[in-house]
């Protein structure tokens, strides 16, 4: 669908299709070092609860293989690695080398090693054979992907039959009053905090805009079904500020 367009959204602006990957890479190169601190500050630490909830619902067990796509600085990879143990395997994959480096160093420093692989990959062309993973996750990454439909098809392909995809992403706030407050926060406070902490107002302006351009809950669920998933459902967290979409391949 979006491949037929000559331009695509980059936040609220339109950029040539082939430019988005480079621009997104630029954003994350810029914020990589301060990414974790900014996540804590921006979400008041609530992102940890969203991620914890995601991990708990994954139902993962020792011996499983997991793909943490757009794994960034490795929050989810760390917890998955602890759960799958030495008999399992976790792959932290991200298109951004800076983020993978930060994530790898951080996990090694925390003693997570031996069952984690790191790779730089494009979500639209995953370099893994069919039916490889028991679980695939993409947390706060799908909205940055140029062709989301293609990425979902790829995620479906690399999942084993019976496997599950979990998409944790900012979504549409369901409570009108909260939505107004959230808009004010996103466009007035968030970029200023980005400037203050990471000295990068533009990147955080993009983050806020990209959240608004991301498909809402029902649209994303339908996209997952269209990509081939046999079952899809979603769970709103914090009144829809974030939604966890789950899709199963049977």
């Amino acid at each position, binding site marked *: 669908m979006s491949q037929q367009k000559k331009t695509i959204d980059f936040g609220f602006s339109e950029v040539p299709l082939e430019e988005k990957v480079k621009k997104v890479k630029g954003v994350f190169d810029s914020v990589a070092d301060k990414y974790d601190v900014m996540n804590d500050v921006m979400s008041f630490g609530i992102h940890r609860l969203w991620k914890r909830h995601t991990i708990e619902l994954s139902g993962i067990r020792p*011996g499983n293989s997991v793909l943490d796509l757009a794994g960034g600085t490795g929050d989810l990879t760390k917890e998955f690695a*602890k*759960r*799958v143990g030495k008999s399992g395997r976790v792959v932290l994959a991200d298109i951004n080398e800076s983020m993978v480096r930060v994530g790898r160093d951080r996990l090694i420093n925390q003693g997570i090693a031996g069952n984690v692989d790191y790779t730089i990959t494009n979500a639209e062309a995953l370099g893994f054979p069919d039916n490889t993973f028991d679980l695939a996750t993409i947390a706060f990454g799908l909205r940055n992907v140029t062709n989301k439909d293609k990425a979902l098809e790829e995620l479906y392909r690399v999942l084993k039959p019976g496997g599950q995809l979990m998409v944790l992403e900012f979504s549409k706030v369901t409570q009108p009053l909260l939505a107004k407050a959230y808009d004010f926060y996103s466009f007035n406070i968030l970029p200023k905090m980005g400037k203050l902490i990471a000295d990068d107002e533009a990147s955080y302006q993009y983050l806020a805009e990209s959240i608004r351009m991301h498909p809402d809950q029902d649209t994303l669920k339908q996209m997952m079904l269209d990509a081939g998933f046999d079952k899809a459902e979603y769970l709103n967290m914090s009144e829809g500020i974030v939604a966890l979409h789950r899709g199963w391949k049977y």
Partner: protein
Amino acid sequence: MMLNKALEFILNEAIRLDEGHGAAFKPLEDKVFTLTLNDLGTTSHLLFTAYGVSVQSDLQGDADATIETSLVALLALPQTSELKGAVFHGDEPLAEQFVDALNSLEIDWEEHLSHYTGDLIAFKVGHAARSVMQTKQGIKQQAGDTLKEYLQFEINALPTKSQVQRFNQQVVQIHQSVDALENRIDTLLKSATTASH
């Protein structure tokens, strides 16, 4: 979710501080336990790996062993050394091994505290804690004795031990007498039947 996180933290800290470095948990690596706390109505899944214990609400597939118990029994484990009223499913010996591993945890609080406070303060805190425990034990014992005396001797609501023993002996004697009487009646009935023929 919060209960799981708390349980995960407590178990991992206990293993970390254990005198035996959690050696009893090594055989449980790559095993999964489902822990149901009936009094709270919660179910958690405990995943043991080389990294420690992880606790989560959902699980794909079945656990190796399931333990149904109560939070009260779990908290009392250090005193009772057993999970009273617990029901095991699945690999029961493995579930028992898990309980044994929990029982084997030994934490020298004074030693660990001394790293932060120094030996003297750690000893004083430990001494105070032991005194409190002894006092608590003494008060508990005294309260039990007082209640027992009141129920047995003041209001005669409960019998004493010797009264119960005497009563049991009397029940046995009556039982024997009834048996003897039954035999005599049987004999008489048989005699009467023979005589009527």
